């Protein structure tokens, strides 16, 4: 398939500014951060997710695309980053997810090993506008590294997600890290964040 859509307009500074946003998002879990880089993502990716992929993927990374993400996305990522793709969630460095309700459980992804807990999957979860329903009590409150006291997660996620997250915390430092991506916004959820 011929890739027609360009990647970053300014490869060096757009990658840097996007990385800075990802860095801030992960070191301040639960905060909403804006990616400023402009680009036209292929159909099925939002700007934030596309920019994150361009910033973090390269020849050394294995990527798993949730079924439903089309051939256009695959060839766009391959052309611009050179990443390799895998069908096996246990092998992947990054997972791109568009449908949070039907994603595999956290345990299906690479968790790292006790000596190399960093050898784990990072989940890039795209979410739509519906998750910003008004703040309610049932939104979980998080604490942990990067959080000054506590913070309420500003988005509405399926209960099953948080049940799994809570259970997963017991195996820290093993586990997965998550970025939630919407329009050009990013929220980070590292494995250190705990529901209180």
């Amino acid at each position: 398939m011929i890739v027609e859509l360009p990647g970053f307009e300014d490869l060096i500074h757009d990658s840097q500014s996007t990385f800075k946003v990802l860095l801030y998002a992960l070191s301040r879990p639960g905060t909403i951060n804006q990616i400023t880089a402009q680009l036209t993502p292929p159909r099925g990716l939002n700007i934030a997710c596309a920019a994150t992929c361009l910033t973090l993927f390269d020849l050394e990374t294995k990527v798993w695309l949730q079924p439903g993400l089309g051939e256009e996305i695959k060839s766009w990522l391959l052309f611009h980053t050179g990443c390799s793709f895998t069908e096996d969630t246990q092998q992947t460095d990054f997972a791109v997810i568009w449908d949070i309700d039907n994603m595999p459980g956290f345990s299906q992804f690479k968790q790292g090993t006790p000596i190399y807990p960093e050898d784990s999957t990072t989940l890039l979860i795209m979410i739509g506008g519906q998750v910003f329903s008004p703040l309610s009590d049932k939104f979980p409150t998080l604490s942990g590294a990067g959080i000054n006291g506590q913070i309420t997660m500003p988005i509405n996620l399926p209960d099953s997600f948080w049940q799994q997250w809570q259970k997963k915390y017991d195996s820290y430092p093993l586990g997965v890290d998550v970025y939630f991506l919407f329009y050009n916004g990013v929220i980070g959820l590292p494995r250190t964040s705990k529901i209180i």
Partner: protein
Amino acid sequence: MPEPGFNFAYLDEQTKRSIRRAILKAIAIPGHQIPFSSREMPMSYGWGTGGIQVTASVIGKEDTLKVIDQGADDTTNAVNIRRFFKKVCGVKTTEKTSEATLIQTRHRIPETPLTEGQTIVYQVPMPEPLFVIEPSRTEAAKMHALEEYGSMYVKLYEDITQFGHIATAYDYPVIVDKRYLMKPSPIPRFDNLKMNNNPALQLFGAGREKRIYAVPPYTEVKSLDFEDYPFTVEKWEDKACEFCGATDSYLDEVVTDNEGGRMWICSDTDYCNGQLP
């Protein structure tokens, strides 16, 4: 403007990406050392190549960079690294802690409290805190995995039996986020307290040893101690800085003549200048 002929921030984009991924993992597992493929830099190992690679991967054209060496902005290492980044990035540089968005440091944390949004990059010579006890990195990695840090306490205890107090004066081991034992790089233990719950992001780069680690903002950093021998910091009883009169900053002892004359001055030059009337 950056010097032509170099990529922005010297490193190629591929290297930056791999270092950036390592930094993100380091933030997700505070205090845990992430291996990275350290590159050869245009200066020798031991001159801050780890810190420089971390800075080069984080820095953007909007950043304002401050570089200190033992607290001072005007020592060789600091001047060289600042000039290097000015050359390859064309970024603004400053000596004022409060104006900097990015601070690279060798062996001190500025006296002026850091704020949210600032990033401090430490140059680390030896990242492995267990090295003095267990020279094998493979074994040390297992000890980290098992959270087996008893022997580090024994080492501090031996200090107490020998000297009556814990004699480790710099690079004093800490536990990060209640999990990983970490070396804070050779900062005086006076600075250890500043690491705890700091609003700024703290990144550590060891070039020769090829390791990156991090302490996210608002993260607990606890210096090892005992109930009956609590952690203490250096004090200079009745001394004040000869230049600015500060009594709350870290003081360097400077020998002034052959007769044993000496004076005490602030190690942090920016702080010292700010205190002057």
